[in-house]
């Protein structure tokens, strides 16, 4: 018998039945899009197209079109790559780690978080493919036999580890996401009337029949995939951090980088999930499933991961001083007081100070405040990567090589373009996919639904 304590707040508000859940989740797919959706879609796709223009220009003339220069040879490209990969982390964390922790509240957000992960990985991939300068030769990233005309890649390089880590991560994320979608596609298949839609969703649902055996296999596979995906949550961003930490550049080479990057990734990922879900619950009227309690839980994750990141920042600062190594000390002094100190302080205030507002229950249960803060955090996390990369490269060991950095409008264009692409994909997804994992949600209705919880209390009193 499963028991749920009465002091736990309900995760589904109101008197919902299984049928209501189906109706509510299928509504955006069956119905017509409203004006707000078209406005958002237009903005997103125009931005996306601008990004494509800047991207094509880069392919045409080479990466000289960027602001990167002789000293600062890594700038916005790697910053954006790490930022997007980081955002992608929340999806796997929510779907895999929170599954292993049996957190029921994940069921309202896991589907969209996973979709977000996949789109974010696409955005990140653009920068990897593009920064090589000759994207038509990108197959050389893989260890192909020498007959293909390339030398074997350098297995000692964390950049190569990235290729493996990120492609594995993308594959497992997509499989995980798709497996979860099968019962939901089947529900849509059974509901829609238009023949073409019926046909499409019946192909997508792989002949799901909903028998006990199907469910048993489904759960087995989910658990196995969760077990596989959990180490991936750690490995991907750890390896991303090793791109920096294996080097002997002061400010980059520090042992705390792997776990600190993972925590930062989850932090920014949750912020992005909040940004998206606050919009989704409003546009598609899903307030009953994405409750204030869900937002509160996510905000608590944000406090925790943000504070872990804060502890890591302070650890780095302290150990730089404690080490007695002049180069280390200067790297951090330069970040905090050098010509790009503004970026450092944006990072500090957005990532370490701003989440502390969520200690107040009033603020962490306020939708408007959460929405604003979720964007503030993602700005902060972009600056974190910028601060690690650019000010460090501006001032390395040899003062005569010190220089500055300004991005070109192509840099900005590609970055903004990926944001456009991300939202374009997400908006399309939200009109064709079930945005909440309804099959999973139904499994907690009787234990965590508001009306059922009330009934249980009344039952206990009689």
């Amino acid at each position, binding site marked *: *018998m*499963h*028991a*749920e*304590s*009465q*002091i*736990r707040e309900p995760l589904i508000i109101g008197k919902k039945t299984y049928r209501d859940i189906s109706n509510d989740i299928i509504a955006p797919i069956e119905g017509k899009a409203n004006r707000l959706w078209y406005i958002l879609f237009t903005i997103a796709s125009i931005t996306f197209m601008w990004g494509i223009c800047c991207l094509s220009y880069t392919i045409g003339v080479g990466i000289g079109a960027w602001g990167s220069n002789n000293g600062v040879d890594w700038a916005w490209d790697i910053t954006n790559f790490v930022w997007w990969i980081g955002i992608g982390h929340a999806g796997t964390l929510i779907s895999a780690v929170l599954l*292993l922790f*049996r957190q029921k509240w994940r069921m309202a957000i896991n589907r969209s978080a996973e979709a977000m992960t996949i789109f974010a990985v696409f955005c990140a991939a653009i920068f990897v493919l593009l920064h090589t300068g000759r994207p038509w030769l990108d197959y050389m990233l893989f260890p192909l036999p020498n007959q293909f005309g390339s030398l074997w890649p350098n297995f000692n390089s964390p950049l190569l580890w990235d290729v493996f880590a990120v492609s594995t991560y993308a594959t497992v994320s997509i499989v995980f996401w798709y497996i979860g979608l099968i019962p939901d596609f089947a529900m849509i298949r059974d509901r829609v009337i238009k023949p073409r839609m019926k046909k499409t969703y019946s192909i997508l649902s792989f002949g799901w029949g909903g028998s006990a055996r199907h469910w048993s296999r489904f759960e087995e596979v989910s658990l196995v995939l969760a077990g596989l995906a959990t*180490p991936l949550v*750690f490995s991907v961003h*750890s390896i991303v951090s*090793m791109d920096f*930490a*294996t*080097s*002997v550049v002061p400010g980059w*080479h*520090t*042992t*705390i*980088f*792997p*776990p600190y990057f993972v925590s930062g990734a989850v932090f920014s990922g949750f912020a992005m999930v909040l940004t998206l879900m606050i919009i989704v619950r409003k546009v598609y009227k899903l307030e009953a499933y994405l409750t204030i309690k869900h937002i509160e839980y996510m905000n608590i994750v944000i406090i925790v991961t943000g*504070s*872990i990141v804060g*502890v*890591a920042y302070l*650890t*780095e600062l*302290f*150990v730089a*001083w*404690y*080490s*007695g*190594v002049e180069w280390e000390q200067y790297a951090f002094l330069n970040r905090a007081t050098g010509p790009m100190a503004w970026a450092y302080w944006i990072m500090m205030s957005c990532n370490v100070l701003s989440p502390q507002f969520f200690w107040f229950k009033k603020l962490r249960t306020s939708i408007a405040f959460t929405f604003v803060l979720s964007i503030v955090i993602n700005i902060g996390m972009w600056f974190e990567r910028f601060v690690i990369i650019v000010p460090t490269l501006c001032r390395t060991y040899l003062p005569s090589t010190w220089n500055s950095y300004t991005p070109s409008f192509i840099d900005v264009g590609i970055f903004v373009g990926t944001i456009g692409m991300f939202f374009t994909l997400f908006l399309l997804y939200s009109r064709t996919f079930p945005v909440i994992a309804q099959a999973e949600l139904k499994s907690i209705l009787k234990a965590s639904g508001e009306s059922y919880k009330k009934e249980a209390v009344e039952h206990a009193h009689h």
Partner: protein
Amino acid sequence: MNTDKLNFVVPSKAKMTSMVLMAVGLVSIICMFMFDKQPDDHHYHQTRAWANVFVGSFFFTAIALGASFFLGLQYAAEAGWATTIKRIIEAVTWYLPVGLSFLLLMFILGQMHMHTIYPWMAEGIATKGSENYDAIIAAKIGYFGVFWWVRTLLYMAAWIMFTWKLRKNSLDADQLGHEEAKGFHWKNVKLSAWFMVVFAVTSSTSAWDWIMSIDTHWFSTMMGWYIFSGMWVSAMITVTILIVWLKHLGYLEFVTESTIHDMGKWMFAISFLWTYLYFSQFMLIWYADIPEEITYFQTRWESYKALMWTVFFVNFAFPMLMLMSRDSKRNFFFLMFVGTIIFIGHYLDIVMVVMPGTVGHHWTGLSWMELGTFLFFLGLFIYVVLNNLSKRPLAVKNHPFLSESLHHSI
């Protein structure tokens, strides 16, 4: 429910065992201080003996602290599954005052120059012209001395206070009615949130102060989290072994197999966390190979190679292979067996962390000295924890998540 099994009585055999362990350990510690000499090195003052006592003091204190952290984590995360084993965790936490007293004594003796575990405690270390002068330590001496002592006392006070209050609220809640008890529950939730914040900072800083400063020249940003993961997994192993043993004696009927399975998962998962942090620290230092950092692993590589690899494989491969399957986490013999091995593995981890910075190249491999000290502290720990366990009912009564835990089934 069998009511005479709700209060734990320390079995005389267990009491006897802990006494024998302490006695054997004490004799070996005394012998260790008599025999630990290096006639050709005038800087060596029974260093290995002192370092061993420090390892024993630290390791078991860390277990209690790890249990305290886990107790707080349960409240802060609104976790319900572990409610039935809360009293076991609480019993482990209250070794804290005993363990911290040992540590404090070690620190005081160090300050009195009885031992040389902490190089920065040496007289004249920051005074130019002194024969002990060390320029690198002198540059950071402001962090040590009085400031170090203030921090040390603050950590101890804070941990004791939080643990004491969490335990008190938990017991008080059971003296009241079901509804009134909720107030105590929420109090503990709030208290735990604060504890988590304090712990997040102090677990790292105390690891720098007490462990990293043994190798005073060396530095690693990971050290705090690395020590933390070790104490966490040791605490999970201890609690699991205790539960399995109590079940074996016929206690804890109300603890479901699923709860024990979950404890097995924690042992498994935190073993991976430890491995992850160990590997990250090692790999990054090995890869960059810069003189400021690599010295740390160089000493270990040269004089402690066997120990280093043993620690890594016992604490990583062993739990990974043995605890992967669901059945193994539900097999009590297996949990006991694997738990005992990785428990020793984590003790050796602390040995490996402490010895190279103190004993250095005088190390001759594990010996009766390490074993004897381990047995003494193990006996003491068992004695104190079982005594704590017998002072409170084994079952919680009023916890709002109790029904979830009683019906826990996965």
